[in-house]
């Protein structure tokens, strides 16, 4: 499957989960394909990084569900920040644990999961729809009933996958990618390399098999598909390029790097690095 085929299955108005975390192992080639499409008016659920910044800058997000948006080495995501400051998107701002519990509720087909986080904080004020639930046992504790974060579709990026959708991460952290896939009607996995199934566990332990094929609707081979976020151990974050992204106007950045297809993007990045090296 190609990235454009994945996007052809998405529709405006959908609730879309995006895997990775901050500026780490984001399915950026799928996000770039989304930017080439006309899909818009999205509710995006994400541990926010440049995926959110780009989609917000392009005006594709109606509602964001997130606990943060960051570029990690650059603490504040500049384009997300600008979008918030001009009131360009709605925000369901929740705590990181609430976010995790919301995905778990959806993955388990439960309407909510009880969580202690959120009480006493302004998360309850800015999300007036959030309800609490009281323990039926002797403790009688009141907790937040974190609603399931059900997704119409999920996009994630991993190191390896087979053609059937068995996905493997080789870095230190799975983030929440398997949960995004389990919480979605249809999940799409991009990977650095598609390999034979037997290849997946030839040299690595089966615990690295994060994503199971029954949760996956399509696989895309996309080398350097997480660029400019990290995809350890295949590559680290492209800090110089991320800095360029963060310090250039959106129009200029999109004009130079996002006008063509993924191949054009990757060569524009190589050209940019060569120019930067000669300056």
């Amino acid at each position: 499957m190609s990235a454009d085929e994945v996007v052809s299955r998405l529709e405006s108005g959908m609730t879309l989960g995006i895997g990775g975390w901050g500026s780490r192992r984001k399915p950026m080639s799928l996000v770039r394909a989304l930017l080439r499409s006309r899909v818009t008016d999205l509710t995006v659920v994400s541990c926010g990084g440049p995926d959110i910044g780009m989609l917000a800058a392009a005006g594709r997000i109606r509602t964001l569900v997130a606990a943060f948006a960051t570029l990690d080495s650059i603490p504040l995501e500049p384009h997300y920040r600008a979008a918030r400051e001009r009131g360009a998107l709605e925000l369901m701002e929740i705590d990181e644990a609430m976010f995790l519990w919301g995905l778990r509720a959806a993955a388990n087909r439960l309407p909510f999961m009880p969580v202690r986080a959120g009480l006493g904080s302004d998360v309850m004020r800015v999300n007036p729809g959030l309800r609490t639930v009281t323990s039926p046992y002797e403790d009688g504790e009141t907790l937040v009933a974190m609603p399931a974060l059900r997704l119409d579709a999920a996009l994630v990026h991993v190191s390896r996958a087979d053609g059937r959708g068995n996905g493997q991460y080789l870095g230190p952290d799975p983030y929440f990618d398997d949960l995004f896939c389990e919480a979605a009607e249809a999940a799409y996995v991009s990977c650095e390399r598609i390999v034979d199934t037997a290849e997946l566990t030839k040299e690595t332990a089966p615990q690295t098999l994060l994503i199971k094929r029954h949760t996956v609707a399509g696989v895309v081979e996309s080398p350097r598909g997480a660029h400019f976020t990290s995809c350890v151990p295949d590559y680290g974050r492209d800090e110089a390029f991320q800095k360029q992204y963060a310090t250039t106007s959106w129009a200029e950045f999109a004009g130079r790097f996002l006008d063509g297809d993924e191949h054009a993007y990757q060569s524009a990045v190589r050209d940019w690095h060569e120019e930067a090296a000669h300056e």
Partner: protein
Amino acid sequence: MSDITGAPLPPPTRTPLLPPTRTPLLPPTRAEYCVIACAEAWRDAGEILASPMGLIPSIGARLARCTFSPDLLLTDGEALLVGPDGTVEGWLPYRQHLTLAAGGRRHVMMGASQIDRYGNQNISCIGDWARPARQLLGVRGAPVNTLNHATSYWIPKHSRRVFVEKVDMVCGVGNDRAGGAPFHHLARVVSGLGVFDFATPDRSMRLASLHPGVTVEEVREATAFPLAVPDEVPYTRDPTAAELRLIREVIDPADTRSREVAG
């Protein structure tokens, strides 16, 4: 007998009047008092995860681990549990990190863009949340942290813009809003000027110690809410010679700490 660096310690001096066997250390800097004040947050904490955010709290946590709190767990800032020399001793990806937080065996020291007299903390945005004047990080894990385990704060630049009357968005829950939450505990606030706790009848913020060279007046001037100040305010304790050597020679030889707090 050797210290943590593996270098032999000087023999015990029988006569205190003997000259020191090493070159005398330069007196502690403000940043080093801040390191000590942060490290003290994890004293007697036992076998829990120390989660420092910011340079000086990170140096403080490692100092505590190397000296008086050897059972502390530390991470590499990513998904690994590591010893002070970087030896990997465990795996802690984000999802397990959140379970550990909910399980309570953790003491976090977070930053704060704003904090009020009851310890309500904001890292989300400045101004009206619906359309902020300045979008910051977002609530991140501040709600889950403050409701589940010991929480402290580190504020390098103590000013009225940070120590405010009322925060714009409550991310970390303060003492007046915790509503008897069973595991809520605000331990201390360390700033570039001193150490603060909540040991008052209404659990509002109190000046616990001044870093040497700072006056009560200076702290009051830089704080936008009425601060409880005891009649006798102690100074933040001096680092021991061994602690100073650890900070300067082992943990932070590049002196990154002075970039976070000058003086």
